């Protein structure tokens, strides 16, 4: 028997496979396709202080081995989540982790304070890397000073496990990771989407209503892997890795590069049951190589 339990700070996951914010809604959408209680955890769709309608249509463009989205954090706000959504999913048998967004530091604080009080949720993911909002979001995550400020501010009010989600749209991701670690993060997650653009050559127009959007999917995997490797070697707190994971082999690569847990994102759209198969595949891999504990794989790349 392989041990698949992993800890991200004080957050205990029954296995390293979780689903990425914004790609798994609130989990229930997948219950027809798979047993969601098998997951290590679910990072639910990004939350903001107030209701957000998100961006105008079109919000999606397919690209080579990937997609751009500019959803823009559509959600009904934190109070609605706490009152109506969380009660319905908190007993789904897996860890539910909120993805916290804000246009200002005050927003981040307000949402995090509410989640600090929320029983049954052990961790939050602080999203300072959303490329699809006019204010806040990625603007926090690509600037060392504001990344530090946001993390410190939330750390003051949030006492459970704080995971900070990093933007890949930076020159030195390892330095950003060190900054947020230093500012009190219990873990970092990466990568969020890359800022990209798609053009309709015939119409001579951008495809997305927002001109630019966030690139995800297997196309970004090589860059994501490199960043995880750099960050793993730069910090001490755990790394939650993602970016184009489509199958168990990809997940293993992210673990070898330094991820303690991984998130499955865009792959959920192509195959809504893929995350359970990734769990099985990791177990199989461990069995095949006599790995007793999946934690032994983390960062075990031979150089």
């Amino acid at each position, binding site marked *: 028997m392989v041990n698949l339990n992993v800890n991200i700070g004080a957050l205990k996951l029954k296995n390293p496979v979780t689903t990425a914010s*914004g790609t*798994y*809604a609130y989990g229930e959408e997948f219950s*027809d*396709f798979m047993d969601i209680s098998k997951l290590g955890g679910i990072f639910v769709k990004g939350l903001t202080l107030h209701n957000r309608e998100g961006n105008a*249509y079109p919000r999606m463009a*397919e690209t080579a081995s990937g*997609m751009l989205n500019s*959803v823009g954090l559509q959600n009904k706000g934190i109070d609605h989540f706490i009152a109506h959504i969380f009660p319905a999913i908190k007993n789904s048998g897996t860890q539910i982790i909120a993805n916290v967004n804000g246009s200002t530091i005050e927003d981040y604080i307000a949402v995090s304070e509410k989640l600090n009080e929320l029983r049954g949720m052990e961790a939050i993911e602080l999203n300072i890397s959303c490329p699809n909002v006019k204010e806040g979001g990625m603007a926090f995550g690509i600037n060392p000073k504001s990344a530090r400020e946001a993390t410190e501010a939330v750390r003051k009010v949030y006492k459970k496990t704080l995971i900070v989600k990093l933007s890949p749209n930076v020159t030195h991701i390892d330095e950003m990771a060190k900054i947020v670690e230093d500012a009190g993060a219990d873990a970092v997650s990466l990568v969020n989407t890359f800022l990209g653009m798609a053009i309709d050559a015939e119409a001579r127009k951008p495809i997305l209503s927002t001109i630019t959007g966030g690139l995800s999917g297997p196309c970004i995997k090589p860059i994501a892997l490199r960043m995880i490797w750099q960050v793993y070697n730069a910090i001490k707190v755990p790394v939650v890795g993602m970016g184009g994971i489509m199958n168990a082999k990809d997940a293993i690569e992210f673990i070898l590069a330094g991820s303690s847990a991984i998130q499955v994102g865009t792959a959920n759209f192509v195959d*809504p049951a893929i995350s359970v198969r990734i769990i099985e595949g990791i177990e199989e891999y461990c069995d095949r190589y006599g790995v007793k504990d999946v934690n032994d794989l983390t960062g075990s790349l031979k150089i």
Partner: protein
Amino acid sequence: MKLVRDFKVAGYKWLNESNFIIELQSAEDLPPIHPGNFAEIQVPGNPNVFLRRPFSIYDCDLTYNTLSFYVKIIGEGTATLGKLKQGDTVNLIFPLGNKFDTETEGPVLIIGGGSGIAPFLLLGKELKEKGIPMTFLVGGRTSGDVHLTDVFGQYGDILITTEDGSQGTKGMVTHHPVIQEESFPFKKIFTCGPDPMMKAIAEIAKQKSVECEASLENTMACGFGACLCCVVETTTGNRCVCTDGPVFNIKELAW
């Protein structure tokens, strides 16, 4: 209950060089399929197609466990779907989306533009079962865009418009006498096609104070409510075409 399941290509019926019906067969029983439902089809073997493609369910046969799709070729995905061989495997997520509301008194008008007729065969079958008379108004740029009138003719009258006048009334569907004339015997309109067409029809339905449902298209990444990419503006905010739709009562839409 939504399913992810492999189907085999059972056969094609080509309507012309860019429109075909593909029949897919499942080894297992099908769940109930409703008019308006769609499927997300994974296009096999094309490196330039990453996401699934959404298609209305054109027909289904619960005896042989087949689903049929009416496909118009517009890009790589639809072209590849037209090049499969009998027996090839195709993966589907289905049935997705809501359904047309056939609770209505009296006759209905069904207006389809181009491949927008796809969801109306199942609708026609259900209406016929309920004994509700229907008239199909089908529009195309030219006569080459008007297909399957023989099939739909089994369920009701067929009215045709073409922009170039090569078949039926010349003009858009909205120019057809059935819409232009004072008397309007229909209690409900169902429509599917290009956005501008549906918006024009919605306008007319409002003027005539007649119920109207439109089946919308949208760029979709998932098809089952996970990504929030496929929104349409409604009177109650942005809603997902894939789960709250694809069928919307036009009163709900912020058109």
